[in-house]
């Protein structure tokens, strides 16, 4: 009967209850769904960055990270790779690359780029380039010795097109200037314009030949099936490698993103708190209004022998019901929104100049983590009950005599 009473009291003023419920539902939706979008942006950012030639783990010669020049190369990958493979879980994929700074030019334009020599097949499991990233032309095939893959943005900048020539220049292993002409056989598109402008891909063997570096490579990138085991796998690899080589995880390689992720969780709590404060004022105000309207009733209940604590409990029961209903609806709409966007995501390309800068994907997919869902519900529920204590205590303080005098 206590629940029944609370439920009926809730619907005495349908409009008012509907207003509080709306506030709760919108608040929960903002916490859960918008939270999932923010999480999705962060996740997309990490995914992009990992996909853009980072991988989960990278192995370099000592010194390459601070000075990525050809001198700091891995000279004997044939000896190193079996050692690394042994330390990796069976479902891990890896690719060895040549990666040097170079200058690209054609008749009209010149730009500094990163020249990446890849093994087309291995690379496709490790970074974005082998996936359906080619929008025009084709991916590298065996024997495409003079083929180069260029990004759409770079092709536009250079006012060139598929089939046209591009000359690449860099320093070779003998510290001489190496230069070679390539033909654009494929144009790729990436999430970020910076990627399209920054990288040119050729066969690993072609790059090795051009730079006179034999079998040597610049880095070995590893992609695991699951991001969560990165740290322990990195430790395993580290423990088997000779001292001259260093192992980095994506967290080490992407310090800005790692830092961002670390503050992101705090930011999510702040976000929830801010929404809750807005929502909380609404809840407290409306509850207070409802309670002052029923002052005489609380006086009556006290005259009949109800103790203050019972009155607190019955007001809290009302707000509990309110919160449960609001949370259910809020979660329902949030899940619905997440589900609706899970296939296609939200296309932010209209704002892509801004998103590019922040390293955010053009299309954002909401990512609903159970801990975010739980945190949002917990915040609303626990804080909601907590702030309801105030109106409840007010209700419990009315004395029968003064309440009855209020006619």
């Amino acid at each position: 009967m206590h629940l029944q009473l609370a439920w009926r009291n809730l619907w005495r003023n349908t409009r008012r209850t509907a207003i509080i419920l709306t506030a709760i539902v919108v608040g929960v939706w903002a916490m859960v769904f918008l939270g999932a979008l923010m999480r999705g942006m962060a996740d997309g950012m990490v995914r992009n960055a990992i996909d853009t030639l980072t991988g989960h783990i990278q192995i370099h010669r000592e010194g390459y990270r601070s000075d990525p020049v050809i001198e700091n190369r891995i000279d004997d990958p044939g000896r190193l790779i079996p050692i690394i493979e042994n330390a990796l879980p069976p479902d891990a994929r890896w690719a060895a690359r040549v990666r040097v700074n170079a200058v690209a030019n054609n008749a009209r334009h010149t730009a500094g780029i990163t020249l990446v020599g890849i093994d087309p097949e291995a690379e496709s499991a490790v970074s974005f380039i082998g996936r359906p990233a080619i929008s025009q032309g084709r991916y590298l095939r065996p024997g495409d010795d003079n083929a180069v893959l260029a990004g759409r943005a770079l092709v536009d900048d250079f006012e060139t097109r598929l089939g046209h020539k591009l000359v690449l220049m860099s320093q070779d292993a003998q510290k001489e200037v190496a230069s070679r002409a390539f033909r654009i056989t494929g144009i790729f598109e990436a999430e970020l314009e910076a990627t399209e402008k920054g990288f040119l891909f050729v066969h690993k063997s072609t790059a090795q030949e051009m730079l006179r570096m034999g079998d040597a490579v610049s880095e070995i990138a590893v992609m695991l099936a699951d991001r969560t085991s990165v740290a322990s796998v990195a430790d395993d690899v580290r423990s088997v490698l000779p001292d001259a080589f260093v192992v980095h995880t994506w967290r080490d390689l992407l310090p800005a993103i790692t830092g961002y992720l670390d503050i992101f969780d705090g930011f999510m709590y702040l976000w929830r708190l801010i929404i809750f404060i807005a929502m909380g004022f609404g809840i407290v105000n409306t509850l207070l209004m409802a309670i002052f309207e029923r002052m005489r009733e609380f006086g009556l209940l006290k005259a009949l022998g109800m103790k203050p604590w019972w009155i607190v409990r019955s007001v809290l029961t009302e707000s509990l019901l309110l919160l449960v209903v609001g949370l259910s609806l809020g979660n329902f709409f949030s899940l619905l929104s997440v589900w609706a966007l899970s296939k296609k995501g939200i296309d932010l390309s209209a704002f892509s100049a801004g998103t590019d800068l922040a390293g955010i994907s053009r299309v954002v997919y909401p990512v609903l983590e159970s801990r975010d869902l739980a945190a949002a519900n917990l915040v609303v529920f626990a804080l909601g009950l907590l702030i309801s204590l105030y109106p409840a205590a007010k209700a419990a303080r009315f004395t029968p005599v003064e309440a009855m005098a209020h006619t």
Partner: protein
Amino acid sequence: MPIVACKNIRKTYRQGDIEVHALRGVDLSVDKGGFIALAGPSGSGKTTLLNIIGGLDACDEGSILLDGDRVDQMTASKLADMRLHKIGFIFQAFNLIPVLSAEENVAYVMLLQGVPARECRERARSILDDVGLADKYGRRPHELSGGQQQRVAVARAIVSNPSIVLADEPTANLDSETGRGLLEMMREMNENKDVTFIFSTHDRMVMEHARRLVRLRDGQIVDDANHPVQ
């Protein structure tokens, strides 16, 4: 032994500099089974006296013994317990919880007393039968007339056999015919169920139903007489 014994009760309200002596030394003792009217003009202290006996208000001086317990010395929590278990209250108006039906209004107090839900229901229905509302169990207060609402209040006040029922001008909001009906019904409960009633009124017709009439004026008892039963 009397069920209520008040000795030298004094109560002064202060509003700023003004002092209102609502009660100035009231002695009153009520025996079990009594049906007593507190009569007097408006402002004579009837409500104050009833509130003090029922523990809703504290007196400044004097002692109140209710069923052997000192009301004036109880803690707030003890007072609540006493009101819940030993006293039935009937007010002039707004006696009922608007969202509960007649039956639920009566049952609610028993529920608070810890009576099992099933028994609450049965007893609520049977007492509503007694006060003449056999066909109105499910009605909400706003679906009942003023007289019917007061009958529900009487039913609620007596359902758990309190030591005493305190009724503050229970008929003041009713027309005289309905008021008479309510009084007769209360009197019936008093006789059949041996419930003790103290009710206040300034209505001559109501006074005539009392078996004992206590007159108050300016916070003092000016007359106390047993009425012949009509």
